[in-house]
């Protein structure tokens, strides 16, 4: 075991309180240029009843304290920049720094969404080129860049589908969702006004076609299919699934969360998909930032174009670009302004860096997943044995015999210097270990990961307690999540108020 711990050694990590605990009246970290107009009297300008004296409890600290505070906090995080982050379904790949640079340029970051369109041609050209690239990658006809994240993309897609069915006389009642789907799929379907019907997977992890046929009726608006599925398996029957749906007038929605397995190799549009979203913060490398921001463009076939959210990017005569809001059949707006533009900029920078060579990224991602699969097969249980695409899903069935579950293994992986894989998902695999290395890992990094996992499997046999009480080398041990939920403490309060609350 010690051999593998060589990857990660303990080192000094500084303690740091909450910023509010460092506050002392009169300190400040930011100076404004002097006011160059007469100072208004807030009492007169606002009226006494509207005026506030200052925000109680706001921190008062100096610049160096702010910098150190957040720098110290940052050292408590694991990150892609430190090493492999094999979270399945999350596609934690390298976030190129040039993308950050260009998103901050004057003339890009500084632009106001309501400025005249003749002064926004640069922004609009960025949007247009990104649209073209995404259409080429997906094989679709039209795309909207407005949705702020994958889940909002899903909602946009379902609203488009709903509008389409309404136009054809009846919005229909149900959306079919496989049991392996992300939780956002059913949550989204409900917001779009649909009932959710779960569809079973067969023993091979594919859609159970008999079950599907049974449930596709004229009441069904769409099937939401993740492909490759959350098992990392390519849904081979997709052209046939599309036909079954279309025969009943239903549409095929594809959750593009796993597009990193397909880019440059095959195109959902060619496979019979009618509408799909992309997670630019997954496949197209925009940083996760601890949970966003993302962007969830929705690409679709021509039949859904009339219902696009407004505004729609259009090219006028002479190549002038414009945003058109006058569209009668539009589903409306899902978000104010023009999408998460700064995220869209980063995604385009990523695509431009690769060009057509983007296929190599896909190939390497699939290569890494299969290399890890090969390295761990026989040591961890592989419930679905069909070939893996960009991720591989094991289960903890073998280790469970010694009382060690997937969460324990995940926590022990932290001691070896890796971020855990995704635990306990997809729901159809009890005790799942969902591993997605992405293309950003070298052979050496994959080898270290395989070694670490093998070593933990050994530990699970020989010293299960060691695994069950992991992590041991972090600055903080396992946290009391039950207590956190039972008596939620969701903000800091000054000491005297806290003790009062405790009484």
């Amino acid at each position, binding site marked *: 075991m010690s051999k593998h711990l060589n990857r990660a050694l303990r080192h000094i990590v500084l303690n740091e309180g909450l910023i509010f605990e460092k506050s002392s009246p009169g300190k400040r970290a930011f100076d404004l240029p002097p006011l160059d107009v007469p100072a208004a009297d*807030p009492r007169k300008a606002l009226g006494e009843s509207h005026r506030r004296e200052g925000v109680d409890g706001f921190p008062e600290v100096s610049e160096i304290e702010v910098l150190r505070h957040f720098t110290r906090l940052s050292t408590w995080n694991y990150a892609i920049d430190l090493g492999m982050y094999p979270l399945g379904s999350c596609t934690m790949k390298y976030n190129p720094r040039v993308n950050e640079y260009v998103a901050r340029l004057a003339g890009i970051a500084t632009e106001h969404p309501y400025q005249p369109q003749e002064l926004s041609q640069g922004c609009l050209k960025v949007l247009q080129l990104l649209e073209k690239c995404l259409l080429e990658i997906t094989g679709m006809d039209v795309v909207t860049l407005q949705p702020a994240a994958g889940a909002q993309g899903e909602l946009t897609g379902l609203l488009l589908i709903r509008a389409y069915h309404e136009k054809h006389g009846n919005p229909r009642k149900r959306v079919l969702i496989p049991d392996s789907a992300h939780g956002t799929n059913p949550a989204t379907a409900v917001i779009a006004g649909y009932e959710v019907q779960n569809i079973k997977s067969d023993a091979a992890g594919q859609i159970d076609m008999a079950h599907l046929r049974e449930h596709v009726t004229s009441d069904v608006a769409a099937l939401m299919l993740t492909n490759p599925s959350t098992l990392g398996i390519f849904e081979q029957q997709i052209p046939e699934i599309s036909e079954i749906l279309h025969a009943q007038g239903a549409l095929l929605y594809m959750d593009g969360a796993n597009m990193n397995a397909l880019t440059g190799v095959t195109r959902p549009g060619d496979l019979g998909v009618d509408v799909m979203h992309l997670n630019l913060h997954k496949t197209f490398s925009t940083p996760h930032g601890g949970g966003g921001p993302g962007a969830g463009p929705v690409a679709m076939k021509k039949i859904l174009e009339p219902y696009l959210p407004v505004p729609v990017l259009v090219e006028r005569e002479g190549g002038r670009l414009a945003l058109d809001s006058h569209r009668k059949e539009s589903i409306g707006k899902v978000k104010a302004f023009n999408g998460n533009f700064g995220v869209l900029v980063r995604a385009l920078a990523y695509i431009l860096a690769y060009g057509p060579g983007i296929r190599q990224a896909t190939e390497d991602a699939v290569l890494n997943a299969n290399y890890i699969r090969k390295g761990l097969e026989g040591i961890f249980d592989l419930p679905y044995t069909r070939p893996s695409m960009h991720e591989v899903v094991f289960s903890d069935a073998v280790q469970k015999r010694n009382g060690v579950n997937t969460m324990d293994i995940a926590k022990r992986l932290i001691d070896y210097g890796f971020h855990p894989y995704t635990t306990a998902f997809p729901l159809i695999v009890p005790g799942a270990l969902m591993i997605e290395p992405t293309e950003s890992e070298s052979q050496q990094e994959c080898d270290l990961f395989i070694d670490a996992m093998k070593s933990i499997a050994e530990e699970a046999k020989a010293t299960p307690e060691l695994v069950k009480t992991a992590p041991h080398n972090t600055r903080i041990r*396992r946290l009391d999540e039950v207590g956190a939920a039972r008596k939620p403490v969701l903000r800091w309060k000054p000491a005297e108020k806290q003790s009062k609350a405790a009484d």
Partner: protein
Amino acid sequence: MRYLPKSPAEREEMLAAIGVKSVEELFSTIPEAYRLKMPLNLPPAMSEAEVIDYFQQRASENSVGYTSYLGAGVYNHLRSVVTDTILQRGEFLTSYTPYQAEISQGTLQAIFEFQTLMCQLTGQEVANASMYDGSTATTEAVLMAERLTNRRRVLVARSVHPEYRDVLKTYAKNSGLHVEEIGYTAAGTLDAKGLEASLKDDVCALVVQSPNFFGAIETLRPLAEAAHRSGALLVVAVTEAVSLGILKPPSEADIVAMEGQSFGLAPSYGGPFVGVIASREKFVRQMPGRLAGQTTDLERRRGFVLTLATREQHIRREKATSNICTNQALCALAATVHLTLLGKEGLRELAEQNLSKAQFALQELQKIPGVKRTFSTPFFNEFTVELPRSVKMVNAQLLKEKIIGPFVLGSAYSELTKHALVCVTETTPRSEIERFAAALKHTLEQPL
């Protein structure tokens, strides 16, 4: 390719270890007929320098060199380089949602601090981290009110940001929610009479914005009382969060939906920004989005975890409070760092400067013959003026002077085509305000 850490020999070695002859074999489950035979038709690969050059060219086709009087939900404020320095630390930038608490304490503690700052600002007891933006936060606040009251009608002031109302209507359409709009008075604030007539016992929420879209500050207490009398909740949207540095917090509200863009985030052509929902403790279990909570580890040390996850989609699926998953975490961090830098004094001074600049600008504009203040209600850094001619035409003239004129209210309110929404922040120097006033005067002196 510079982002890919493999040599050709390593790829061969890995393929051999897997036991396949070529990478093509790894894609054998994709039916042959559907596999692309040609490379994608994308622009040729670019070096780093070429990528920068491409975006610099695009930047030069935008508005660099212009002074702008646009606000209307997106504000230009000073940002410290310290904020961006912190944001670009890889440990924050390149980490995932902090599900694995032991190695995500940095993000989790920062979220906890963000929640605290948002509560202090809004006068509320709990705040989430985070929503996509102010528009979706407002919509989610209404959906939350619907769950809390089990009622289906929502009253929205017409003085709420037009795009926020649009987003609400998109979401409402299919969830059985009926949206009704309440007009504004000659003072630019919510029409109390119209409210009285519409406020029945089937209303889940009254939604107002303060300062509202016209810049006017709403008096919230009577609105809260009216809403509560009929069993509805008061939702207050805040688009210009800096105003809370000098304005009474909306503590009368049951739910506050805020846009945090003003706290350290660039306008960025409309996003990414950060939405927040703040509310009362008793409503927390109906709140959407992520929450970080304080707890202890096995050795009784303080730590933080994502908590109350049973509200969320990854646990509750179709019964979740919202479908939100990825949110705007890094933007919330930007706001946290920015507000920590500003601190109590800095935020107050910033708000006072905005107030003073806007007051000065109004005085300067009022000196121009034919320019009148539209509404008499107090404002923060945005106000509405009536011009003697169409704002659209005036703005076209101002562009020639490298001035991006104020927001054309007629684009969202057909009755206000001659009215302009002027925004002035601490970033607009006095000399520019004077130049704007002179250019406007000159424009209005020209024959039509």
